């Protein structure tokens, strides 16, 4: 988790986005110190609901940059992910995936997850970048907790992307229903030996299976009007002058606040 935070902080810095404009709805409980360090607004929501919570934040104040952190690997929140992608809601979804096969690349690896991690041992995982891409997400990438620089670049890039972006991070991260003690220490070593960078790979081919090495990289980067852009275009074409475009004027800052003067 620490390495992801580092990458996130670097990414924010590189992107030029002001940290105070970033909101992180998450179903993983961050440490307060981490949030303090990042300087973002943090919302720990119910399991799986970070994306709709983020949708509300974004539509409530379209000036915000919303970065939902998903720790449940699309189990509870899968539906919100596919619908967010379809709408092209302006969110950067960071999906922490701590699933590792018992055997990958012909090599035996300690079972990282007990039977009750988000996937049980006899379950197969999603190919999350492919799922996101098929539903309409603009930007899909996957990195492991080792690829900090690449991850930071990806985050910086995706933060400035207009539309739904998704970065999957393979990490032995604390998942809030698995105990940290289950996570064996040599997972990082395993990532090192078993991952291969292939940028622009067709997301179809990046599934994680026991036979193949884990493909990481930036897979897709498309352009498409965002939800609010489509909304404003469609409604002004139908309603004309009667329509008040949504989110174009930043809402009045009644509470004062630290950014009040900007």
């Amino acid at each position, binding site marked *: 988790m620490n390495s992801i935070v580092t990458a996130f902080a670097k990414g924010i810095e590189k992107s030029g986005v002001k940290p*105070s*404009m970033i909101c992180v709805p998450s179903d993983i*409980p961050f440490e*307060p110190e981490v949030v303090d360090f990042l300087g973002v607004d943090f919302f720990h929501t119910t399991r799986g609901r970070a994306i709709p919570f983020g949708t509300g934040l974004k539509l409530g104040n379209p000036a915000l940059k919303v970065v939902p952190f998903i720790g449940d690997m699309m189990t509870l929140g899968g539906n919100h992910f596919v619908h967010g992608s379809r709408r092209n809601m302006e969110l950067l979804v960071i999906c922490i995936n701590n699933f590792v096969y018992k055997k990958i690349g012909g090599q035996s690896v300690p079972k990282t997850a007990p039977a009750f991690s988000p996937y049980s041992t006899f379950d197969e995982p999603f190919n999350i970048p492919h799922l996101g891409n098929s539903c309409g997400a603009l930007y899909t990438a996957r990195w492991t907790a080792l690829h900090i620089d690449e991850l930071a670049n990806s985050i910086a890039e995706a933060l400035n992307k207009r539309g739904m972006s998704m970065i999957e991070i393979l990490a032995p991260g604390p998942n809030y229903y698995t105990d940290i003690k289950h996570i064996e220490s040599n997972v990082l070593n395993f990532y090192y030996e078993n991952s291969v960078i292939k940028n622009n790979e067709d997301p179809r081919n990046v599934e994680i299976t026991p036979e193949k090495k884990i493909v990481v990289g930036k897979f897709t980067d498309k352009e498409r009007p965002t939800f609010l852009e489509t909304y404003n275009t469609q409604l002004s074409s139908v309603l004309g002058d009667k329509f008040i475009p949504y989110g174009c004027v930043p809402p009045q*800052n009644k509470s004062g606040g*630290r950014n009040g003067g900007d």
Partner: protein
Amino acid sequence: MKTDPRAVKTGVYYIDGDVAAGLGALAAGCTFIGGYPITPSTEAAEAFARVAPSAGAMFIQMEDELGSIASIIGAAWAGVKSMTITSGPGYSLMMENIGLGAMLETPFVLLNIQRAGPSTGVPTKTGQADMMQSRWGSHGDYELIAIAPDSPQEMFDYTIKAFNLAERYRCPVMIMSDECVGHMTEKVVIPRAEEIEIEPRRFYTGLPDEYLPFKPDADLVPKMVKAGDGYNLYITGLIHDERGYPVKNEEFKSAYVRRLVDKIRLNKDKIIEIKEEGISGAEVIVVSYGISSRVAVRGIERAREKGIKVGNLRLVTVWPFPDEKICELAKTIKAFVVPEINYGQIVYEVDRCSHGKANVVLVPHGGSGVHNPDDIFDAIVYAAKQEGKIEGVVEYKTKLEKSIFGGGNKLKK
């Protein structure tokens, strides 16, 4: 504070309760509704969707009810007034996030147009069986406010009131209406914007560095800021301290959750609104809410013609429940008669608060329709005749029940 004139469609209308609620939300300054279609509440969403674009507001149809409620909590933290609209089954799905709303002390309004249940039940017909759910449906301890309007005009007025209460006490407010009121078409008068008083959000105005998101004022309600204003918020659904940071010690849990419940319990007198008529000198009082209160009037009138002194007590705010009021009245009367479109929910509260001082007669109705006023009349007559004390809720056997399950005793315990 006055409301935004763009959002008020001043005039006299002939509309149904759902539409009135949609227009009421807009008039109250609500600029974000996340919803999911469910009979019989869709008209409210449709009405809002029609008027929203020309008032700078947004309606988004989310993928499900879980998403709807999560999105409106998010929107509330982004600084706007938000609402969702649903009915029984959708309401059940929202339970987890209602707890989140209570925990994060998020002001929002939830409109539940009740239908006959359980499960899918009868989607197009009325019921009042979600009343206890609105109080107890989410896990853990919390308190919230529930309002039961009984006409389209009230749907408009009380939607505005609901937003005001939500902002005032920073808690979710439920509008527990029902299909009859939702689909009833009546005259609705929408006043001019200057006449609509709305409660502003309790924004923090002090020094940014001294802001503590969950530090309560004297009335136990903390002040809010908006996301993105540079306060570096840490907001969690875990039990947290004044800074919002999670804590894991039990003593703090008690203190925190105690404040969550006390901010409603101790401000109860300011929140509760009841309408009473003919109470003084009454021997029987009919306690009702929502559509049942309109049906009850007919039964009460008939009983009065017969010379029975009947009082009419209507709960406008059902939660928090007016414990003391009922307790006082119980000492002066023979019995309460409680007509509800369910098999006994609020009647248990009446029973509890009457402390054995007055008899309590339930006139049940399974839903999918409203009471036959004759049943209410009969129950009043029965209650007035009864001399001794009867322990527990007396369940009146309605004509409908007798016609289906056979005659038998008029009353059953």
